[in-house]
């Protein structure tokens, strides 16, 4: 469809006039547009095609583990979508419907989530997805030059895939490795160099055209070595030993006990001797239900009062400077250890 570019003006006699001219907007590759939203025409596999891959025992175990971690199944939606992307390589339309069933939400909600986040691929990409940072630190250090170099080397533009299906170039926002700017991600690995047959990112090593060449060569070598790219766990490995969120499906965990910690003692006790007696001040904790003030009486302690839990100070009219005081707090049925002893000054 041809879109006539120009500007619309509203004039006094209630007529719209159209001023033809170039739209002064330079197309800027947005990460969302590169692998995300422009998928309307991409052939989508049917549910029958993807189900055999998704409903395997291994995936079922993982999904059950994920669902047990959140109080509501919908919490696992992002993680389930990651599992789908790991298994299928991308997130086709029908798999979103499948994820919404697993996570007990509407397909529309799941589709909204997929399109909101930029890392879910709604079209398949090349075997090596090269994500270049183009944000302020990397731009400052010459990211646009590195991207242009890579585009030239692979003879594709940002957002495109090489004809052999090996590489896709995208530009993304800050990757969180600005100390090594400019940086790139090769699939899920940060890469500024190749050392010992591995992609590395060491302190102070930044991308240069030579290092880009090394990284591309590493990818070519790897594609010859392995028929298919080895699958990497999209969720960074499994957790052992947890029982899940209390109350979640498949979880046997019990909720937190209310009184697991010792009762709170009175903190910050201060005793000041004045003409009217000894004034005690302390920090009030929300869990106090009862307070007792005690005064040293020889080697034993004698109760001198029970201030209310809302009180901020307590006055012992018979107190004198030099006398030692302490307080004991109670929280429900738990009695705390006595506070530190304070001598009135």
């Amino acid at each position, binding site marked *: 469809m041809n879109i006539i570019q120009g*500007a*619309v*003006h509203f004039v006094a006699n209630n007529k719209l006039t159209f*001023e033809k001219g170039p739209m*002064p*907007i*330079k197309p*800027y590759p947005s*990460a*969302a547009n590169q692998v995300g939203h422009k998928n309307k025409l991409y052939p989508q596999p049917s549910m029958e095609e993807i189900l055999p891959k998704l409903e395997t025992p291994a995936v079922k175990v993982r999904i059950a583990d994920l669902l047990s*971690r959140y*109080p509501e199944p919908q*919490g*696992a939606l*992002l*993680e389930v979508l*990651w599992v789908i992307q790991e298994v299928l390589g991308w997130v086709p339309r029908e798999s979103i419907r499948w994820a919404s069933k697993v996570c007990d*939400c509407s397909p529309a909600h799941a589709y909204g989530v997929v399109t*909101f*986040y*930029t*890392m879910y691929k709604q079209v398949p990409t090349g075997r090596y997805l090269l994500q270049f940072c*183009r*944000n*302020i*630190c990397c*731009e*400052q250090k010459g990211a646009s030059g590195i991207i242009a170099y890579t585009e030239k080397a692979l003879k594709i533009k940002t957002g495109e895939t090489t004809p052999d299906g090996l590489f896709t170039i995208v530009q993304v*926002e*800050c990757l*969180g*490795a*600005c*100390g090594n*700017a400019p940086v790139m991600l090769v699939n*899920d690995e*940060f890469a500024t160099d190749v050392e010992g047959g591995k992609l590395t990112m060491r302190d*102070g090593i930044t991308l240069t055209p030579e290092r880009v060449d090394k990284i591309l060569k590493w990818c070519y070598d790897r594609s010859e070595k392995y028929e298919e790219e080895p699958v990497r766990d999209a*969720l*960074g*490995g*499994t*957790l052992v*030993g*947890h*029982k*899940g969120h*209390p109350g979640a499906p498949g979880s046997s*965990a*019990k909720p*937190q006990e209310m009184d*697991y*910690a*010792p009762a*709170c*003692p009175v*903190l*910050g006790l201060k005793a000041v001797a004045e003409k009217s007696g000894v004034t005690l001040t302390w920090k009030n904790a*929300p*869990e106090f239900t009862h307070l007792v003030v005690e005064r040293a009486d020889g080697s034993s302690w004698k109760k001198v009062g029970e201030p209310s839990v809302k009180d901020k100070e307590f006055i012992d009219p018979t107190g004198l400077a030099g006398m030692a005081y302490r307080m004991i707090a109670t929280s429900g049925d738990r009695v705390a250890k006595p506070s530190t002893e304070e001598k009135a000054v």
Partner: protein
Amino acid sequence: MAKTIKVCTDNFGKGAQDIAVYKKLGGYTSISSRLFDLSQFEVIDMVKRSNLRGRGGAGFPTGLKWSFVPRHTGKPVYIVVNADEGEPGTFKDHFLMNEDPHRLIEGLIIAGWALGSRTAYIYVRGEFLPCIESLNKAISQAYVDGLLGENIGGTKFSFDIYVHRGAGAYICGEETALINSLEGKRGEPRLKPPFPAVSGAWKSPTCVNNVETLMALPWIFQNSPEAYAAIGTGCAGGTKVFCVSGDVKRTGVYEVPIGTPMMDLLNSPDYAGGIDGVLKGVIPGGSSCPVLLPEECEKATLDYECMISLNTMFGSGAVMPFNTTRDVVVLLNTLGNFYSHESCGQCTPCREGTGYAKRVINSILRGEGHDGDLELLLSLAEQYNGTTICPLAPALGQPMSAFINKYRSEFDAYIEKNPNHASPRISATHRPGAFW
């Protein structure tokens, strides 16, 4: 003397990813020796006395934040670790989680004990898969060691930690957007109040803390809160991990006490080792912070008060110096592209306004600027303030007005490249309504 103190980065390069090494280096002693004898209120009181302030950017006192979390509401309390480190220039959490995941777990157990939490989630941004792998390995080791799970150390306390992988959205670093994302929704910020401390994840009390904040807790417990408070300034205690990127000799992650002069960090051979070229300006706390001129940097110290007095922010600790060969219009252009791309689209001033600013800056950069464009950008920056749910649009507006005000002549030079710059801009072609 104080310079040698390392709170968070002490175990770097020592292989502390393994629990045995971490324990040999003194790890988990705060839990085995002290924590289980303390009441919840005592732990919060210790954190308050340590003067620890949130390291994510806003700098809210951590102890005070914890004291807002209500108890005995009948709902579980969640702790969510904000490891969605997306602020351009910031990469400390990336290093901290890679090098020392057990310190984060230890800090989380302390926070869990203080807040009565049963479950904690570490929300890691999707790009950090190596970090997630390192965290999952460390958490599994902690489960095997009996530090996590049910009835930890023979007490009634039970605690679980899960890693949640984000999927690439800068806005999820905002705490309410992060909570929405954790619940499996689009990462759109929520209106406050209710604050997350009262009604956060799954409408339960939720405490969102930065990685570095929690990693300071083991040190505070092994030493003392007073010792931690003594390191920093009166307004904020302790050390801060700074991420130095840009035009310096040695970029990287450096831990210095709060209150250190900025030029010490940039010039000292122990840290960044000096500027490459002639200093033109420094972005002090991540891309959302207004830029500082060299003469302002000379008197700047790295603490909250001084940064506010210079009309900028302490932020997340990303220090980005740039030299005289860098073009500020190009830098502002990348910021405009970034924020308009990352706007979640809920509030009109941000969704349309950041795109409007981006299109105007783009056209200035292409040599199609007009007189009055800079006033237009400044007025846009002003209109972002207070009109949106979250501070994403002001995060563009503040650096935008600082860049324009402080380097005005360079912007004017770009505008004068347009032969027709004196004619007014046909703003209909850039304005949001016309664009769609």
